[in-house]
């Protein structure tokens, strides 16, 4: 018959009281586990985001440097954002906001002094959209709505193919498009996996049969890649019902000295076109950099505020729990004064009595620790999102303006991040230890008081 057995029996015979302390301590411990887990998840997400931003910026800078003579002229077509409107061909609606230019514009622009070449494109997103959940940095999840695929028509001219890299280079199977190709389509690997297609298989695009000639790996971050079908420009025009239309023109100047002049002429003559030059792209890149730096900085500020709030919340939880344990144990000591007197009368020392009560406190906190781990394991994501402010890591959708050319467009229609808090075993052990320590500390004073009770007084207590 040891002190531990007595402690177990005492705890079990006062079930409601023990339950109260166990719940209080358990929740406190769950908070201790959940909050740091949430903070770590947010820290990792912020860190990954910052790293990705830097790498994206560097790549963009390199890309822009390579295209100093390029003047990009776009209509407002080809977007993957929630398509609507009356389709003129099934599957490819002519959106109200979409504007396409006639091919005749190519000759007009070529006649401008200093223009070397004009490379036309037709980009058209399918009407069908899909909502997908993708996992981002730090385990964050996003819900995005985008077109299932984008048709991209390119002018299969051997000079353009050779001089301006209008086709993707990273082929995974089959072959690339070449001059004179007809009735064939080049698909991005994510589109073939979406539809389960293979090279040399026949596909039907809006009633027109095509052979899959090759598959390429799209560039950029895997989770953000678009599904693209690249084909001959004239066939793209037929399939989309946009005969003689283009959505984008890459105008190449003879030298950088002509770029501004050409851009000004195009801007003045064709108001439907959005014209961007090397300088605009650099300016946009700087804007993006500022925006992303601000986003990361905001996230870091929120994170540091979160850490301070989390510390306060943990301290409050610890203090509240200690007080609960303290008062419950004080009440227990008061209730068991006569028992304490009896124990002392039959030879128990003050130390024996004190250790008995501390042991009971530790026992309760041990059980509470187990309960807390269970609550924390199940409810950590919920608790951390409930107790911590949301760390916003994406201020808006990412611009796709400076992607490597020829890959269509897409956008993040909706972006919602949730923190996936993962529990660290070390954290669990630490919180478990803290729970036991709290139980011991909370019962220390009541136990000390119990040990100081004079036996004669305790015996008189009713």
């Amino acid at each position, binding site marked *: *018959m*040891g002190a531990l057995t*007595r402690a177990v*029996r*005492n705890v079990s*015979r006062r079930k409601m009281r023990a339950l109260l302390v166990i719940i209080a301590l358990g929740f406190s411990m769950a908070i201790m586990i959940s909050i740091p887990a949430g903070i770590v998840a947010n820290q990792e997400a912020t860190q990954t985001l910052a790293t990705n931003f830097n790498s994206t910026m560097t790549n963009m800078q390199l890309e822009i440097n390579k295209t100093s003579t390029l003047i990009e002229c776009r209509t407002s077509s080809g977007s993957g954002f929630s398509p609507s409107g009356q389709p003129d061909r099934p599957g490819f609606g002519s959106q109200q906001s979409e504007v396409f230019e006639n091919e005749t514009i190519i000759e007009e622009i070529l006649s401008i002094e200093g223009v070397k070449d004009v490379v036309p494109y037709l980009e058209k997103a399918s009407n069908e959209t899909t909502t997908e959940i993708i996992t981002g940095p730090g385990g964050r999840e996003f819900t995005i709505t985008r077109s299932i695929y984008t048709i991209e028509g390119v002018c299969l001219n051997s000079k353009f193919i050779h001089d301006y890299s209008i086709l993707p280079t990273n082929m995974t199977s089959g072959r690339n498009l070449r001059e004179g190709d007809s009735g064939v389509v080049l698909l991005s690997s994510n589109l073939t996996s979406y539809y389960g297609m293979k090279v040399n298989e026949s596909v039907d695009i809006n009633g027109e049969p095509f052979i899959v000639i090759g598959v390429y790996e799209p560039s950029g971050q895997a989770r953000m890649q678009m599904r693209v079908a690249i084909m001959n420009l004239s066939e793209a025009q037929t399939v989309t019902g946009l005969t003689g239309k283009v959505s984008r023109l890459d105008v190449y100047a003879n030298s950088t000295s002509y770029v501004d002049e050409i851009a000004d002429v195009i801007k003045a003559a064709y108001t439907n076109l959005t014209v961007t030059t090397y300088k605009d792209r650099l300016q946009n890149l700087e804007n993006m950099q500022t925006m992303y730096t601000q986003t990361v900085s905001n996230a870091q500020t929120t994170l540091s505020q979160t850490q301070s709030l989390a510390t306060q919340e943990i301290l409050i939880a610890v203090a509240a729990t200690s007080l609960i344990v303290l008062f419950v144990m004080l009440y227990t000591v008061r209730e068991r004064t*006569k*028992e304490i*007197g*009896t*124990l*002392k*009368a*039959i*030879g*128990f*020392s*003050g130390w*024996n009595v004190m250790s008995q009560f501390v042991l009971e406190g530790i026992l309760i906190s041990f059980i509470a620790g187990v309960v807390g781990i269970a609550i924390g394991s199940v409810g950590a994501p919920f608790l951390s999102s409930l107790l911590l402010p949301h760390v916003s890591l994406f201020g808006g959708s990412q611009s796709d303006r400076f992607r490597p050319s020829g890959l269509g467009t897409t956008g993040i229609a909706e972006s919602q991040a949730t923190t996936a808090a993962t529990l660290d075993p070390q954290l669990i052990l630490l919180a478990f230890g803290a729970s036991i320590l709290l139980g011991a500390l909370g019962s220390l004073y009541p136990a000390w008081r119990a040990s100081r009770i*004079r*036996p*004669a007084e305790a*015996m008189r207590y009713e």
Partner: protein
Amino acid sequence: MSETILKTEKLIKIYSMGKRKVSALSGVDLNVNKGEFIAIMGPSGSGKTTLLNVLGCLDTPTSGTMILNAKDVTKLPEKKLCEIRRQDIGFIFQTFNLLPYLSAVENVELPMESTNRPKDERRKRARELLGTVGLSGREEHRPHRLSAGEQQRVAIARALANDPALILADEPTGNLDTENKYEIVRLLGRLNIDRGTTIVMVTHDSQVASHTERILYLNDGRITREKQGTHLMKKKLMCPHCGSKIQLSDARCPSCRKRL
């Protein structure tokens, strides 16, 4: 000459109640010999329980001296008093004071916990003691499943656990019906004769007190008179009423049928 187990001289206990001083014991001189069974009687407020608390080292006297088992315990610190309570004294309380969450045998084992006895030996002795007080077969019962008389028997077994030099009983029959009252007194008497246990019992029941060897009357914190009880005759296996031969186990005298 009998060996003195407990001796007090001019024992005084004064309680401070704010500015007021209340004298609970006003110079108690007491001599208890080894193997004696004595009763202390007195009206309410005469200082009986205070005297028992001081004798049991649960409280310290304001002045005077107390020698227990040849040790002066008057000025000992609490730690030493605790050892003395464990080794030399056994307590029996009016309200039994058993721990409700322990079985009978665990309650008896409790005082032995702080000794060096091995666990098995403690359990064995606790069972033997429960047998001695007539509770064989009830060892695993918790207090709420025992009658008042049985609970007091468990308390008596617990008091005997560490084989103390002195047993102090505070109104041990106060919460019992007549039948159980005499059963408990007879049990205490038998333990005194069989085991030579020295017993000091506080009671306000003269019938119960008469079954002891010596009755001390306490009044206003002083022992005012002393009287012989019937226990001495029983020790000689004689009926204190008619002088006939009796057995220790007899509840009534076989000749005169009077309660023993």
